[in-house]
């Protein structure tokens, strides 16, 4: 019997005998998916507005700084200072990105579909965390690259000038990495506590903003040690403290230098240790949170 053309044949169910990828490949897929989510790829146009608005602002600021420097020859801000100046934008970026990464999944109940798959349950939060860290680092590091390119192409010292510029850029990128790690781990932990995105965003902003007055109060207390340790109280000032200690004149330029040097006194290592402990605590709590979520 001849069959009419264009008939779609139901070939039935096909078993799959091909390769199944390793844990690392699955982790990578989840990581990339998270990174795309942060910037709104694979999402509605609405989800792209905010991330790309922030990307636009930081790029314009960096391009402006590069332009001023090439025309007037005045360094508006160093690479590390750029990260500091953009910290408010980073806070809002985290407040939008972290709930997008984890609160959505908590709310829609999709997590059992992840945890019923081979992926170990710690991989889910870790892949999301890594994606957010990468996104924040790109957000702060990308514009620094713009500033570097601007400076490198207008330098008057030839290759030596480019090399010197590169030596300035690398600590700046590391400093951006520190911002990214601290902000991402706090933001993701807060967001993982609730399925409501608005609550998560509010919570994240609160953690960063509400702690700032504490720094203000502590820094006017009549004790020098308390003043010098005051910046531990808020994540943003904690990161800046580590920056002041480790980067010195790359972060603090000219007249402010002397004053800044005395801001944290000799407590630099304390700030570094506090930053490490803060991140470690956040990651531990995040993993504990998902151990609990997975069994529900």
């Amino acid at each position: 019997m001849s069959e009419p053309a264009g008939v779609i044949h139901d070939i039935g169910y096909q078993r799959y005998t091909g390769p199944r990828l390793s844990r690392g490949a699955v982790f990578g897929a989840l990581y990339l998916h998270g990174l795309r989510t942060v910037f709104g790829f694979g999402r509605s146009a609405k989800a792209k507005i905010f991330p790309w608005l922030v990307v636009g602002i930081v790029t314009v600021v960096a391009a402006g700084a590069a332009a001023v420097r090439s025309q007037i020859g005045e360094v508006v801000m160093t690479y590390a200072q750029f990260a500091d100046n953009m910290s408010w934008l980073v806070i809002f970026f985290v407040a939008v990105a972290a709930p997008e990464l984890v609160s959505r999944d908590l709310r829609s109940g999709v997590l059992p579909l992840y945890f019923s798959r081979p992926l170990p349950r710690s991989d889910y939060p870790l892949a999301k965390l890594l994606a957010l860290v990468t996104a924040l680092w790109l957000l702060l590091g990308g514009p620094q690259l713009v500033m570097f390119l601007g400076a490198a192409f207008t330098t008057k010292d030839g290759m030596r000038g480019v090399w010197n510029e590169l030596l300035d850029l690398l600590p700046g990128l590391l400093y951006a990495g520190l911002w990214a790690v601290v902000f991402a781990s706090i933001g993701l932990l807060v967001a993982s506590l609730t399925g409501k995105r608005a609550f998560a965003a509010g919570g994240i902003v609160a953690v960063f903003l509400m702690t700032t007055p504490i720094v203000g109060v502590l820094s006017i207390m009549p004790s020098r040690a308390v003043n010098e340790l005051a910046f531990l109280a808020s994540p943003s000032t904690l990161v800046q403290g580590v920056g002041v200690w480790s980067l010195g004149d790359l972060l603090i330029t000219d007249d402010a230098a002397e004053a800044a040097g005395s801001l944290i006194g000799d407590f630099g290592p304390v700030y570094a240790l506090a930053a490490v402990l803060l991140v470690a605590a956040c990651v531990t709590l995040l993993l504990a949170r998902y151990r609990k979520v997975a069994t529900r």
Partner: protein
Amino acid sequence: MTLIATESLTKTYGGGVTALADLTVAVEPGIIGLVGANGAGKSTLIKILLGLLPPTSGRVRVLDLDPTTQSDQVRARVGYMPEHDALPPDLSAAELVTHLGRMSGLPRTVARERASEALRHVGLYEERYRPVGGYSTGMKQRVKLAQALVHDPDLLLLDEPTNGLDPAGRDAMLALIHRIGTEFGISVLVCSHLLGEVERICDTLVAIDGGRLLRADHISAMTTATDVLAVEVSEGTEELAARLAAYRLPVSREGRLLLVPLADEATYDLILGAVAELDLPLHRLDQRRHRVAELFATREPSHV
């Protein structure tokens, strides 16, 4: 091969709530119905089978693997359809199932192909490119089934797959599950609190109540000789019973009724003959189909 085997499996939650108590059961591949009232321990059992919850005591094996120590290997070969809503509303079914296929270790292009296939098998075609948020409950249930199927598991664990569906939707879902279990060659464990539903499609039935095993057997073993003739006569019930017993029919009394297992058509004739010979006023003679539910009905009170 034994598909799922548990041995004295017990799960006690923190608050002293016992979800599973000394459950020992072994089932062969096929379609298995797991029935029990809400809170009987079905979902807890599924989570233990997936290695998501550790049992308090006892042993468990799934596909000859131990989910407590080899949970990743178990989960690679098992597909799970949860009871509750599990779909992000703004993703399309195609995107979601593809992504979850990749989470099961499928390469990117394979995941996309198999996602389309799985969605086609559950009956979603063009609508798979629309956001899940606009789907009907029936379509959402199908997407949940497709994501459990995308990585070609050897065993599907379906938690209340007919929840929230209208009668037509239930029939379609049950037919689909039956097809997966028979044509696709994938074993299926279907959880339900509706016995009448699962008994239609499954080969094996496991009934639990309060975390204890009520009964586990092949459905054929449960339903054999379950067709029964009920005879009611206005008087002379004793005489008729004696006469039927003389014909070597295994008669049993149930109130004013005499119940006779229906062996073949000759049983009718024998009964009618006996009634006629004794000249008794026959009130009624009808055939009853024993529902599996009745098999449990007599047992359940003993556990309460």
